């Protein structure tokens, strides 16, 4: 009993009773946090609320509205929900998240995590190779894959599929959505693998030994033991990767800039295009508010899942 029990359960002295050195110390703490509050307040929190206001105006970067923006009420939202481009971007984002984060990255990450538990000789090398795509900047990733997926029979992917008798094509034009899913899967295997590896290794070794004593086969051990025990980690992964994938911009922008014809216009690109290509800041803000709301809902799920104790 080094610090009194009561202290840890009820917290330290109430501000009323602090004296001297302690009151100074409490004041110091607020001072240390002040610059962070200022920075976050100015560049994150105020803009987040400001976007709600902007979404109710016809603010624009050019034209008459740029000089004299007006309050237009919910007109942006009305337009938004009848706008084909908006629904298209939501749908594209949905398939993108489902295909890359929920299915592609997760399955390949899980397979890699499970297989790399074996004491293989080349384990460190394979590990490093799988991690590389996660480390590469988004523009470089986009640039790499523009090359990989280019048209013409000399293009790298076309040469590979030629072995299987598949005709050459310009992949980013013929299968744009599938391709950005493949590229983002490539980029995110590592994150899934790292998270799932830590989840798997936190399962007690004795459980596996007990299961083997009970006569379970490796397949049974995986599906009846590993997978159920991994569920919290899997949920955590799904939430985090969904949030980050919704927020994605640079990778897809560098690959396709949302094209062709909006086929890869995920919501981040849609906001960018509406705001900085079509210069409609008010309308872009309305989309941003919808996106913000979706992310915050998932974020609250994340907080509750982690049972964050702060």
């Amino acid at each position, binding site marked *: *009993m*080094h610090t*009194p029990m*009561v202290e840890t359960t*009820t*917290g*330290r002295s109430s501000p009323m*009773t602090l*004296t001297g050195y*302690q009151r100074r110390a409490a004041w110091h703490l607020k001072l240390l946090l002040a610059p962070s509050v200022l920075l976050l307040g100015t560049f994150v929190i105020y803009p987040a609320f400001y976007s709600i206001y902007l979404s109710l105006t016809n603010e624009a970067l050019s034209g008459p509205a740029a000089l004299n923006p007006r309050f237009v009420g919910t007109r942006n939202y009305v337009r938004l929900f009848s706008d084909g481009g908006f629904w298209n971007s939501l749908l594209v984002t949905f398939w993108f998240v489902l295909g890359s984060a929920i299915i592609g990255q997760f399955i390949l990450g899980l397979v890699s995590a499970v297989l790399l538990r074996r004491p293989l000789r080349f384990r460190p090398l394979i590990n490093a190779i799988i991690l590389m795509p996660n480390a590469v900047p988004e523009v470089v990733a986009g640039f790499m894959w523009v090359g990989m997926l280019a048209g013409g029979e000399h293009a790298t992917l076309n040469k590979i599929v030629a072995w299987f008798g598949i005709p050459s094509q310009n992949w980013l034009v013929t299968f744009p959505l599938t391709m950005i899913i493949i590229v983002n899967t490539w980029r995110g295997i590592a994150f899934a693998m790292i998270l799932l590896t830590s989840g798997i290794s936190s399962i007690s070794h004795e459980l596996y030994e007990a299961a083997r004593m009970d006569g379970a086969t490796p397949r049974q051990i995986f599906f009846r033991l590993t997978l159920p025990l991994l569920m919290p980690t899997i949920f955590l992964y799904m939430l985090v990767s969904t949030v980050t994938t919704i927020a994605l911009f640079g990778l897809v922008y560098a690959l396709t800039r949302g094209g062709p014809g909006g086929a890869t216009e995920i919501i981040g690109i849609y906001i960018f295009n509406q705001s900085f290509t079509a210069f409609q800041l008010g309308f872009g803000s309305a989309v941003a508010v919808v996106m913000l709301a979706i992310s915050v809902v998932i974020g609250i799920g994340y907080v509750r899942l982690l049972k964050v104790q702060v």
Partner: protein
Amino acid sequence: MAAIELNGVQKSFGTVDVIKGVDIRIEDGEFAVFVGPSGCGKSTLLRLIAGLESINAGEFLLDGKSMNEVAPDKRGIAMVFQSYALYPHMTVAQNIGFSLDLKKVPKDEIRAEVEKVAEMLQLSELLDRRPAALSGGQRQRVAIGRAIIKKPSVILFDEPLSNLDASLRVQMRAELQRLHQELAATVVYVTHDQIEAMTMADRIVVLKDGEVAQSAAPIDLYKRPANTFVGTFIGSPRMNLLSASVRRSSDGSVEARADNGWVIVLPDGFSAFDGDRIKIGIRPEHLRLVALPAAISAKVSVVERLGVETYLTFNHPKGSIVARLEGDITVKVGEQVGLEVTENACHLFDSSGASIQSG
């Protein structure tokens, strides 16, 4: 010179009163031990003296001067933390000399002081090591070194031996006592271990629920516990407590009839009325076996033979009794034996638990 005086000291965390008006006086050069069960407030009291917590009410005087508003480092008090709190990124020498370094004492002077302290603590060979490369006992000594280099008038110890193994603890106990004599500083030492308290202290302060249960020399505490709490807290196995009623006979003799059927003759001068409810405290070592038939007889429930002594437990729904007997006694479980209480060894408490020992 450093006499410690706490006058009506109170401390609460939020709505929880941890220290509820404590008066303690510790003389200059005394080795005082605060002892008590978990949550009794002994560590908080120590931190109040250190200045790490502020006092809500009452006063803390050091040599007659109020310390309530004095910063921790200006009180002339050093503290040895339970975790030792040795800075892991500094060597032993840097750890010990840190307070001097902060005061901008010249480097060579610091080195000389550090070496002096290190020699006293047998740390000279270890000065360039980091705490991670030290054993538990060595870390303990570095923590002490860091405290004594400041030449404090008071050194505070917060359960310093609780992280050491048993044999090292015995050794460090002796070493701490030696240091105390050498330094001639007032020591306040917090522990929950009554053996540490009994062996080292000049004065023991027993704390219970944020109040002083008793403050006295160790042997006085053992011989004259002020209440049942102190009586049962000090001594092992713990003091047996029997609830009883007082009976005054017509011939003037007074006896107590315990609820478990035992009858114990009380000393003559005992002032109580017929029918008073009291508690009788009998230390296990003050019971001995006698041949049957005897005034007290009981059935043995548990026998623990330790070789040098034997513990017998007598279970009873109105309170079990433990006897601590010298030597190896070969009685069997279930056997009926006669018992006798050493003369004048009973401690008598009123129904609230306060001592009513006659003069």
